[in-house]
């Protein structure tokens, strides 16, 4: 990469770190460190909520998915706006008015200590692991693209993030998120502009080519439990996932607990309700335009440069033969696209679809060969955008994009480290180990807890590299517990529900999700949230009713 691009990346890293350290002055007590003394404006909290959810996986994986699979992925977010509105009238006022540090603290007040501890433990387990995955996702890609050891990539993002999160607490995390969100949107918008300039056809014709290749299909109305990206999975499964994530996951709950009032907390969530789907469409559009760009500029057969080199060295004849067939398929696809632009009729569209299928078939063979040679799943989709950025973006913009990817990773990691430390200290250390400690003592312990989780995340990141698809791994970790934890919070709103019902219901919900996960692994993980939440509410209500009747019987 050009030195100017590196200068932009380094300047960004330094700026975020220095600004974070500057915020440390405002965090002299525990409430300031974890909740910014409940003083932050709604727009900063709203941007922080969005930045936490938008990780580097989104910047690299989702754009790549746009290029290879089109707009289909957007259905995943169809349930988000409704979930945000529902949270705004249910859990947000509950949690904000309860003046709690963590969502799980509220469960002890409503049920008992063991329900609180179990939900907090599940959060620590799932988020602790996923935090490592979030650093690993861009780390793996940077290592392959720049030829670094994975440890360097992990350290480059991990160390500055840990420093500003440890020193500045939630203040540093939130204000860094605001800048990082702006950087991400600027980088993405600049990519769209550059792509529109670089693609040698009019924007309308570009959409015509993308549409003919199936990249503009945003809706799939089939009702299929095994398919994650359908309208119904998004609306039903997506609503439950978003309710769980934004309503019960401490990494998100802590964002809006820092807001000045209940109304500001609600408004911060509504920012996502309004903007998440358009932003996601912008991100997928970048991928779709990259796909159109590669109609007119020959793309590499394998986007992962490390795999490309290994395959070329190990099986030169086979790879060369595939390259020959790939070049012929690309030329035919280009001709079909040219014909479509000249006369956009049904036969021309069908020709583009057929030529695209030929290109995809050759690439599938190359991906199989890469898997055979390297012994690793290729995950080539995650390299489409980084490779395009480094090969084709103008000077400066590549640096801006790489900084944007780092910003996305760091904003998610920082929020998670901060929330992991909060739950460790508030739900475990202060609750069970040393309830009588002073504020200064807890503040010191909190800083060490943040540092410890940062170290753990970096170690996990180094080993998470070989886990499955970067996008789905992050969601899978959460979805195993998410629905059941949401079920407990839903149960908390039912006046007749008791502590025994909540605890047994939680166990039953997780057992049901585990049974579905192992018994019917083809069922999409989006449905796990629905199953978990429903089982907890049904079992929890039933147990509470039985317990209530027994008590009434004993009393009578």
């Amino acid at each position, binding site marked *: 990469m050009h030195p100017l691009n590196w200068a932009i990346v380094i300047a960004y890293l330094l700026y975020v770190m220095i600004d974070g350290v500057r915020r440390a002055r405002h965090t002299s007590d525990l409430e300031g460190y974890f909740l910014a003394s409940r003083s932050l404006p709604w727009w900063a909290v709203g941007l922080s909520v969005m930045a936490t959810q938008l990780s580097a996986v989104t910047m690299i994986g989702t754009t790549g998915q746009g290029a290879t699979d089109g707009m289909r992925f957007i259905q995943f977010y169809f349930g988000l706006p409704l979930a945000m*509105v529902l949270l705004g009238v249910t859990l947000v006022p509950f949690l904000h008015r309860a003046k709690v540090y963590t969502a799980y603290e509220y469960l002890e007040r409503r049920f008992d200590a063991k329900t609180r501890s179990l939900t907090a433990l599940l959060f620590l387990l799932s988020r602790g692991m996923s935090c490592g995955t979030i650093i690993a996702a861009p780390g793996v890609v940077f290592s392959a693209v720049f030829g670094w050891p994975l440890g360097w990539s992990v350290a480059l993002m991990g160390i500055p993030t840990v420093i500003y999160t440890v020193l500045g607490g939630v203040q540093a995390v939130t204000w860094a998120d605001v800048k990082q969100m702006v950087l991400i949107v600027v980088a993405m918008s600049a990519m769209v502009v550059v792509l529109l300039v670089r693609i040698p056809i009019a924007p309308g014709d570009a959409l015509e080519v993308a549409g003919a290749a*199936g990249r503009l299909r945003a809706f799939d109305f089939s009702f299929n439990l095994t398919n994650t990206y359908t309208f119904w999975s998004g609306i039903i499964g997506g609503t439950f996932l978003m309710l769980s994530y934004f309503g019960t996951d401490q990494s998100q709950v802590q964002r809006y607990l820092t807001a000045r009032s209940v109304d500001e907390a609600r408004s911060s969530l509504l920012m996502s309700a*309004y903007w998440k*789907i358009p932003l996601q469409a912008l991100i997928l559009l970048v991928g779709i335009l990259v796909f159109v760009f590669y109609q007119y500029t020959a793309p590499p057969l394998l986007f992962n440069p490390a795999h490309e080199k290994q395959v070329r060295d190990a099986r030169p004849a086979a790879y060369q033969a595939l390259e020959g067939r790939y070049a012929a398929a690309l030329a035919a696809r280009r001709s079909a696209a040219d014909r479509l632009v000249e006369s956009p009729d049904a036969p021309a569209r069908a020709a583009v679809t057929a030529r695209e299928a030929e290109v995809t078939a050759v690439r599938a063979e190359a991906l199989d060969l890469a898997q055979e040679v390297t012994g690793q799943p290729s995950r080539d989709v995650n390299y489409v955008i980084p490779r395009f950025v480094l090969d084709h973006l103008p000077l400066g913009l590549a640096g801006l994009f790489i900084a944007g990817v780092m910003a996305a990773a760091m904003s998610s990691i920082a929020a998670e480290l901060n929330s992991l430390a909060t739950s460790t200290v508030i739900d475990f250390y202060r609750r069970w180990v040393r309830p009588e400690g002073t504020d200064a003592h807890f503040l010191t312990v909190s800083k060490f807890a943040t540092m410890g989780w940062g170290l753990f995340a970096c170690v996990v990141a180094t080993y998470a590299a070989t886990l499955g698809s970067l996008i789905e791994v992050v969601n899978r970790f959460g979805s195993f517990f998410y629905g059941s934890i949401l079920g407990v919070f839903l149960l908390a709103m039912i006046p007749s529900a008791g502590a025994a019902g909540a605890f047994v219901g939680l166990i039953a919900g997780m057992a049901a999700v585990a049974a579905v996960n192992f018994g019917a692994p083809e069922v999409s993980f989006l449905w796990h949230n629905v199953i978990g939440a429903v089982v907890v509410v049904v079992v929890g209500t039933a147990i509470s009713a039985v317990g209530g009747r027994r008590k009434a019987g004993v009393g009578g």
Partner: protein
Amino acid sequence: MTEPTEDRARFRRTLARVMTVQVVTLLLLWLLQSRYSS
């Protein structure tokens, strides 16, 4: 604390606004799909 009726009215207004934006976005995506997809 606000009155429950005021809360309900505000919720209905918010729900209507958010859902309107959602429907308009989905409509645009649908138009894009039906206009350009073969």
